[in-house]
């Protein structure tokens, strides 16, 4: 009997008797003999709790990158994860519950999702939101599919300044259904080339997908993009950074039709890339075309307030091949972390986090570009993240600085050998930033000699 299996021989005997079977092997009779394993599985011998903990500590110790002062972003950010968020997640009632199929016994989860939807919609300036997608990238792909359903068109334009991994995910999702995806270039300032977009837009264009701030941290107004799309009866899908929403004008104010994004910054650990949480917000008139679960408020038989999963005929378990998406399991617990974070930060807290990221990133940018040979790649406003060109190969610098305890950023070698994308969150102190600047200077001086 393992520690998770309570029934032993005594119980087995009793149960087999009730079943009317002579032995357990009788129950395997439906599996033809030829498929039955003749040899036991070849797995390592079982380990005890102590040994497992020891092994995991050893493995964690081999992650030598842990503890490096993190200036890397590129879609995942080293923000503060307040202690209370994890305490909410560790309530058995939340983390060991299933999808809220029986609403009357799942009001905790359902209400938390309703509140999450509300906060996502308000943050992005949209009318409605769903209960979460796998991550920001898959949310962007699903948003493109949604736009194609709404417009009954089959081509999307995607800004070249969108996170390239997201673009790759979009290509994977759209490659097979007879859809077309075209990349809109950006100009030398890093600004989306609206003229090119206008030329590329056609009668078959369902939407354009842009990022705000974009992959390079650049902030550009999206109203002209929305206007351009709307003139062609197409939609604008905006992939927005949620923390920046504490300071920036929300996409919903500037004509966005669908807003998606990555919720990792809102209370989720970096965890080597997941689980994260994609959010999706939109307009009320499009809600029936949305993918994923949606929770709505209603009343019970006595008129009391309650919550249910609603508009379920959009979903795979009912509409099957005609569903708006195949998504079933989503990222509910991660969405709960997002909601708890947003509620904790609240109106003033989120604004302050955004301001800290903004001021600190500008401080570091100003210091970096003072260094010999370091220059900004684009001359446009940025928030929290920026791109510089180093006079040395960025990847080599990044690797070398890890030895001094800095993860200096994300090298964008496809763009330029010296391009380094640097992110600054509220966690970074002046001392750390000054330390990074000194380390970069030291490396450059040594390399130039």
């Amino acid at each position, binding site marked *: 009997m*393992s520690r998770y299996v309570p029934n032993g021989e005594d119980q087995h005997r009793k*149960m087999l008797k*009730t079943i009317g*079977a002579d032995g357990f092997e009788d*129950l*395997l*009779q*439906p599996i033809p003999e030829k498929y039955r394993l003749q040899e036991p*599985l070849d797995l*390592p011998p*079982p380990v005890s709790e102590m040994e*497992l903990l020891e092994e995991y500590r050893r*493995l*964690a110790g081999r*992650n030598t*990158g842990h*503890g490096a002062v993190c200036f890397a972003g590129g879609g*995942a950010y*080293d923000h*503060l994860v307040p202690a209370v968020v994890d*305490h909410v997640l560790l309530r*058995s009632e*939340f983390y060991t519950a299933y999808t809220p*199929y029986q609403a*009357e016994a799942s009001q905790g*989860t359902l209400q938390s*999702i309703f*509140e999450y939807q509300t906060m996502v919609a*308000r943050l992005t300036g949209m009318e*409605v939101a769903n209960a979460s997608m796998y*991550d*920001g990238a898959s949310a962007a792909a699903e948003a493109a599919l949604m736009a194609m359903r709404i417009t009954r068109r089959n081509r999307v334009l995607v800004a070249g300044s969108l*996170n390239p*991994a997201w673009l790759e*995910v979009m290509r994977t999702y759209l490659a097979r259904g007879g859809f077309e995806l075209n990349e809109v270039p950006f100009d030398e300032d890093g600004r989306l080339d609206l003229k090119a977009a206008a030329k590329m837009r056609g009668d078959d264009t369902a939407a354009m997908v842009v990022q705000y701030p974009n992959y390079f941290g650049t*902030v550009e107004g999206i109203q002209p993009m929305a206007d351009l799309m709307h003139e062609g009866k197409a939609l604008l899908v905006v992939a927005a950074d949620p923390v920046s929403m504490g*300071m920036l004008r*929300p996409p919903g104010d500037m004509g966005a039709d669908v807003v998606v994004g990555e919720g990792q910054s809102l209370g989720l*650990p970096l965890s080597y890339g997941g*689980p*994260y949480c994609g959010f999706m917000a939109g307009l009320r008139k499009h*809600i029936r075309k949305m993918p994923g679960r949606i929770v709505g408020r*209603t009343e019970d038989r006595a008129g009391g*307030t*309650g919550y249910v999963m*609603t508009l379920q005929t959009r979903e795979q378990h009912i*509409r099957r*091949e005609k569903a708006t998406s*195949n*998504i079933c*399991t989503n990222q509910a*617990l*991660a969405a709960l972390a997002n909601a*708890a974070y947003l509620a904790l930060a609240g109106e003033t807290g*989120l604004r*302050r986090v955004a301001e*800290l990221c*903004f001021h600190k990133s500008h401080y570091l940018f100003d210091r970096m570009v003072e260094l010999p040979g370091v220059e900004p790649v684009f001359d446009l*406003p940025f928030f929290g993240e920026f791109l510089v060109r180093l006079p040395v190969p960025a990847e080599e610098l990044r690797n070398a600085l890890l030895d001094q305890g800095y993860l200096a950023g994300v090298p964008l070698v496809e763009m330029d050998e010296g391009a380094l994308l640097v992110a600054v969150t509220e966690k970074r102190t*002046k001392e750390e930033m000054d330390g990074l600047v000194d380390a970069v200077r030291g490396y450059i001086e040594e390399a130039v000699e």
Partner: protein
Amino acid sequence: MSGTIFDHSRPGREGLSLPELDVPRTDPAEALGGELLRKDGMGLPEVTESQLMRHYVNISIKNYNIDRGLYPLGSCTMKYNPKLHENLARLPGLSELHPLLPDGQVQGTLQIMYELSDLLCRITGFDACSLQPAAGAQGELTGLLLIRSCLESRGEDHRNQVLMPDSAHGTNPASCSLAGFEVVSVESDQHGMVDVDDLRSKLGDRTAGLMLTNPNTLGIFESKVEEINGLVHDAGGLVYMDGANMNALLGIALPGAMGFDVCHLNLHKTFSTPHGGGGPGSGPVVCNSLLEPFLPQPRVVKNEDGSYGLSRGGSQPVGRLLAFHGNVGVMYKAYAYVLSLGTRGLEEVSRNAILNANYLKARLTEAFDLPFDSGPCMHEFVVSGSRQKKEHGVRTLDMAKRLLDYGYHAPTVYFPLIVSEAMMVEPTETESLESLDGFADALLSIAREAEEKPHLVTDAPVNTPVLRLDEVRAIKELCVTEPPSEAGKAND
């Protein structure tokens, strides 16, 4: 009753503890331009940390959960989630890692991913694995894209039909559409298994493949699986196994040896990671060597020097499913599960899951109809509430709600679609005999109530935090976000 988080909001309350700004300020209007700055408030609540915790505790207690009792949702495998694994996944050295760190800096995590892939291949009898898919449905999409890519590489783009039994999970047809395939439904025979003649008649030169859940959603092992898979292969298609029901087969049989080409697993079902109220899960895909070249990238590899790395290799990858490497936090827990159980432990899991299901089935057959009686079930079974509906006007939905009054979660209801008034029950191996008896007693008692006092059942639930909810109203008077006016009021 507790209201929403917005009801606790009062202006000026703060919950987040932040450091003071330690660098000079930059004028936002100058740096960003006034046009791009937010002018209005966000409408987020303003609460303290203590209020936040209290709010969530108060709503959490309205949830049923596996730590409270048996959770017999069929095909969901609601087993106990070991607590140690939560601690392991939260070790800072594992959880605080940026996904774009160079490989050399994340050797521990890459090793876990590599080893987990290897163990999943051994457990299923396949050759290669991708851990990237975030959940079962994304695993299905990945598997179908592998099939699609493989067919394209053979110049067989015209093969655009995927067959599946009418008992399939809804995600199967939905994933097919997303992968650009047309769905062709295959009938079930009188034993609840694939009707092989119907399958044969639907195979042809447009067949791309078959999706099969085994054991199927009726809890029945498809005993003709080899013949079925052979027919599909002979027709030029490939076979996908939906591994949602893998909890029946651990250490007992290998899908890879039954002729399947590709299969997804649900770490949040079979491998004990918590379901989190709807996610996150993890849906790794395992496949044979034929499909391996098409697996999504990047892949975790072991280098010649024994180190681990991410490889963009693979000749014709299907692409990428997520921005990074999958739900790594979930993988940590699943790997711990396999390590802690080992060969015998995993075998014990499936054997007990099967025994528990057969025991419950035996206890329930006195009151409920079995739609298919083809001998022992595997890890789950389906009964029908048709008798109760016909004789007493009590529907399966009513009985499901009544179970909530008895302190249990309900089984999966109205699925699979081919069984009327279906109740699909999966107790899992982590339930004791006493707990199985408690559940059986409750359901039998409800069957008696349906006969004697049907209103008790049709009025249910009455012991839950809310009474039966009006789902029609939820749609007709759609309210999916807190209206702003009320938030404004709360903030006054």
